[in-house]
């Protein structure tokens, strides 16, 4: 467990630091939803309110509407970088810092800078601007987040080369979701408002399929919901000294599920159900088997354990095998270490003999883990058995 004192700096970082600029990120599900457009609208509004606004970097992709909206906003010229005989253009970070506006608009924060510049990635440039007290508006698509890269690649068949750590989103003061229905985005695409005519067919047949867009939209909505939840928890945690002391227990950001499984074929049902719940909650899933110490698994257990391992891997869950003589104590220790908020277990077989006097497992867990939900997963194949 991380001591409260060690957690303090991390928590304090989330507070607005005096002198640091205000950071707003416009997040979208795909190109063409209107992130850059919204950023420019906000820039105009700030300019009209009398603030000193500049465009640090704009990627208009030749879109006429975007270029038209950029007019009237002062722009810091991009700098030319020559790399292996190729001419590259990037944000002129020193020039923006020297210009020292109150607000800078910097498009596409996942962009990788040309070699030889101050930083490898554009989001690192933005950190310099924020540290200099400059407010920043920026944009990014959800598929650029590292944690979602595999998921998005599987959804869309397109793997993003330019990614950024999820913590960048966490450091923003505001994350604004620019939402558009997949149908509306496809209409914009067909009307030539996203790509040039020669690229439209390829886009419609590739990335811009309605099932891809629907799934990406769901991912973007969920991501923003998680960010809001995470910020709410952090705000509550850094409030008072008492709150910080309360943070001595691992503060779960969102939910984390712990499914208790044993190596036998029926355990897969429980893991499937737990995964489904984890998906609905947007939670991480751990699967735990508390193995009897000093006893090797039987061949059948080895086989079932291999199947569980395979299942956990394909689901993106973590399979933990922990030897322990007292199952409830071992589960409680693991649940505390991993910050679990839910425990799922199958129905126990009826106890026999004096074992009836022992505290049932769900109750034992509830006693050891106050504040953690315990859910018993039913065997639905037997749901009609006792119906008269």
């Amino acid at each position: 467990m991380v001591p409260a004192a060690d957690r303090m700096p991390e928590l304090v970082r989330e507070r607005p630091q005096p002198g640091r600029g205000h950071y707003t990120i416009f997040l979208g599900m795909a190109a063409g939803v209107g992130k850059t457009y919204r950023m420019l609208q906000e820039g105009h509004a700030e300019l009209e309110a009398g603030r000193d606004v500049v465009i640090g970097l704009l990627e208009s992709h030749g879109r006429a509407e975007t270029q038209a909206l950029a007019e009237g906003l002062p722009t810091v010229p991009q700098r030319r970088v020559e790399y292996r005989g190729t001419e590259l253009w990037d944000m002129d970070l020193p020039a923006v810092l020297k210009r020292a506006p109150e607000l800078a608009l910097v498009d596409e924060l996942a962009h990788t800078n040309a070699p030889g510049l101050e930083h490898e990635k554009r989001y690192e440039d933005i950190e310099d601007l924020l540290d200099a007290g400059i407010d920043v508006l920026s944009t990014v698509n959800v598929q650029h987040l590292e944690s979602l890269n595999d998921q998005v690649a599987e959804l869309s068949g397109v793997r993003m080369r330019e990614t950024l750590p999820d913590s960048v989103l966490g450091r923003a003061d505001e994350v604004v979701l620019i939402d558009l229905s997949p149908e509306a985005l496809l209409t914009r695409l067909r009307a030539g408002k996203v790509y040039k005519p020669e690229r439209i067919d390829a886009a419609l047949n590739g990335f811009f399929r309605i099932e891809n867009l629907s799934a990406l939209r769901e991912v973007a909505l969920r991501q923003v919901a998680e960010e809001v939840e995470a910020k709410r928890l952090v705000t509550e945690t850094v409030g008072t000294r008492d709150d910080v002391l309360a943070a001595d227990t691992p503060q779960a950001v969102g939910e984390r599920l712990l499914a208790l499984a044993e190596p036998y074929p029926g355990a897969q049902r429980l893991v499937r159900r737990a995964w489904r719940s984890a998906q609905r909650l947007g939670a991480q899933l751990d699967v735990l088997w508390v193995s009897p110490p000093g006893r090797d698994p039987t061949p059948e257990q080895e086989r079932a354990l291999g199947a569980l391992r395979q299942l956990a891997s394909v689901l993106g869950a973590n399979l933990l095998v922990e030897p322990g003589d007292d199952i409830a104590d071992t589960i409680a220790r693991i649940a505390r270490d991993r910050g679990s908020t839910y425990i799922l277990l199958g129905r126990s077989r009826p106890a026999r003999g004096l074992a009836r006097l022992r505290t049932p497992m769900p109750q034992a867990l509830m006693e050891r883990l106050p504040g953690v939900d315990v859910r018993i997963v039913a065997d639905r194949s037997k749901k009609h058995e006792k119906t008269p």
Partner: protein
Amino acid sequence: MTPTIAIAVGALAAGLVGGWLLPSNGHNRDKKLPHGTRRILVPFTGTSISRRAFDAAIRLARVEDATIMPAYLARVPRHLPLDAPLPVQCHSAMPLLETIEQRATALGVSVDTRIIRGRTYRDALRRLLDTEHVDRVIVSATSSARTGLSSDDLEWLLEKVPAEVMILRPDPEDHRAVTAGAVAGHF
């Protein structure tokens, strides 16, 4: 106290203590695991499984007292590592595996489900058969060249798999399938 009563009391006390101690660590020592059972593999792809293949597997499993092993074959795109999580395919596979397990269990047949990754369906099947022993394989041939196992895959199965392979020929009844619809909403 007579010696007989003393022995009886002692035996009762020993029984009580033994009964208390034996299951005291909470590990279930008498969990019945299938041992040496026959296994019937039913590989499938997509969002449904042929009703005829499912029924055939159930009938055989009942006769042979075997375990059916429904295996969802997941294709891993080339740009992902082979051990990458596949949440999108799992969204199709998990409710379907749940349906199959519920139906089979309700019919008194034991089930041991799998989800196996590979670059192709055949690759996934090969990986499964490299690590698991099965006695029979039941597959439904498809009249569509775009879905499921191809005729090459079926030929490979017949030639290479050390098990009895049963291929069900395409049939007008093939539109009847077991789908995830049965568990939608409460899975």
